């Protein structure tokens, strides 16, 4: 899987690159408008991470270029602006997702995973991992071909873990993932623990191997 990271802050681009490169993603970088346009013209990417404020031009123009060339690259806008107008404009112009800075790397990885899978598999979007099968559009989970019933939050958490496999994820990142902007306003995330406990229990009872591990007391990891 090839990913193009268009971001002028070298440090941030590097962090994203390091985090993603462990997961079979091949990352390339562009730090200016010109460089980004050149790479877009020459290569195909599975996903493009696009910062809107770039030296040399407006990131929206790059999105226009991708769409004008009828490329199938998934596009996720990562912006420091976090203005609703930008978000709506970006999505209307064909971006697949929008993530405001600062974000959790695990959240970014989950968004990339979902964009790429949607683009590549469409309606037959099925994740298989040993005894575990997840039907993404149908929101169904099977272990050894038996359905297990998960709540919406548990399902969301499972996808989050699967798209961040072998990574340590903090409770804060999980809370923000399942509660959105509202989690932002609280400091106490005990409810995450309850959801994870239930998820673990359901997977375990269905005969799923213990992929989901608790680390250091409050961190979690999907180990495979």
């Amino acid at each position, binding site marked *: 899987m090839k990913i193009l990271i268009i971001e002028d802050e070298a440090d941030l681009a590097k962090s994203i690159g390091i985090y993603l490169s462990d997961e079979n993603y091949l990352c390339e970088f562009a730090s200016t408008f010109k460089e980004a346009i050149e790479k877009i013209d020459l290569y195909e990417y599975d996903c493009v991470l696009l910062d809107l404020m770039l030296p040399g031009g407006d990131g929206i123009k790059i999105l226009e270029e991708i769409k004008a060339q009828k490329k199938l690259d998934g596009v996720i806008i990562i912006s420091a602006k976090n203005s*609703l107008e930008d978000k709506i404009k970006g999505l209307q112009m064909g971006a697949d997702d929008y993530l405001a800075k*600062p974000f959790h790397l695990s959240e970014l990885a989950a968004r990339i995973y979902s964009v790429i899978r949607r683009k590549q598999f469409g309606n037959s979007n099925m994740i298989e991992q040993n005894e575990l099968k997840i039907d993404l559009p149908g929101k169904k989970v099977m272990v050894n071909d038996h359905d297990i019933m998960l709540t919406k939050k548990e399902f969301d958490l499972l996808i989050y873990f699967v798209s961040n496999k072998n990574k*340590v994820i*903090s409770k804060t990142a999980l809370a923000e993932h399942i509660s959105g902007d509202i989690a932002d306003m609280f400091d106490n995330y005990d409810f995450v623990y309850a959801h994870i406990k239930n998820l673990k229990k359901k997977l375990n009872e269905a005969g799923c191997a213990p992929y989901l591990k608790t680390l*250091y007391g*409050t*961190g979690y990891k999907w180990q495979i």
Partner: protein
Amino acid sequence: MKKLLNRSLKQFMTYASIVLLISVPAYYIIISRLWQYELDEHNIVLTDAAGREDTFIIIGAVTLLTVVFFIVMLGGFILLNRRISRRLWQPFYLSLEKIKNFRLDQQNPIQFDNPDILEFSELNQSLDRLITGNIDVFSQQKEFAENASHELQTPLAIIQSKLELLLQSTTLNDKQYDIIEDALKALARVSRINKNLLLLTKIEGSQYMDKENVDLSRLLMKTVPLFINFRDDKQIDLIQDISPGVCIEGNKILIEILLNNLITNAIRYSPVNQPLRIALNDNLLTITNRGAIGLNPDKLFKRFATGSSESPGTGLGLSIVKQICMRYGWVITYRFVDQSHIFSVRFGN
């Protein structure tokens, strides 16, 4: 409070009446002397009764004339006064009306006329300078806050990404993990403050201007379930008393922010295992949660005036709420009754 021109009219009238009153004996004395002189000249001797009669006639005639002139003068003054106030003071009243309607946060500069009267012209020029200066300072301050928040966003993103990479290190022990987690938590708070500052500057500026008719009852019923996780964490007994069909005019995003901030605050500062009531009736939204000590209503809505040191928020939630209410002319009030904090918002003017 008296009107400026009424005050001068009254003084003119007092002066005129004093002058006319003094003129009555003056006229009388002069006319009597002249009359006496004429009588002496022609050697006419009057009887006492005729003399008294003449005196009365003179006094009566003089007084009558004075009263007539006084009334004419009064009428003239009032008419003149009206004309003066309409014409002479008109530039003053025009400027006054413009200043009355001016609001710094709306950033509409005032165009003063240029009257041909020196004093008013100078007044307008001074006002113009003063207001332009204020608008400049205000927008500079706003721009500064906005730029500062924007500029902070990227380094915050970098720190967060680096800490999260550090979490992936395989040689971490529990203590080190906790340190990183604490740093991440503090960082999350900084990001939150930053985001809210940005939001505040946007609301104070002229963003989120578009309005629509919002079904507040429905929006509120949709908003409350978003908080269920946090309610459960504190085992709060959430009581909803929302009457259907309450509609208000405003920007939907801003109304959502207002509801979110008020509910967040109520949950955040509610003690564990206590009731929290959200009520919407007619145009009045009331959110009530338990608490030990009342808050200072003067400070409450100011920036960074957090009421409590435990579980600190961003210190901006309520000033955002206040700012939104101010934009639409809604009234937000705070009371502390029976060990309960009560926030209410009255929508509509």
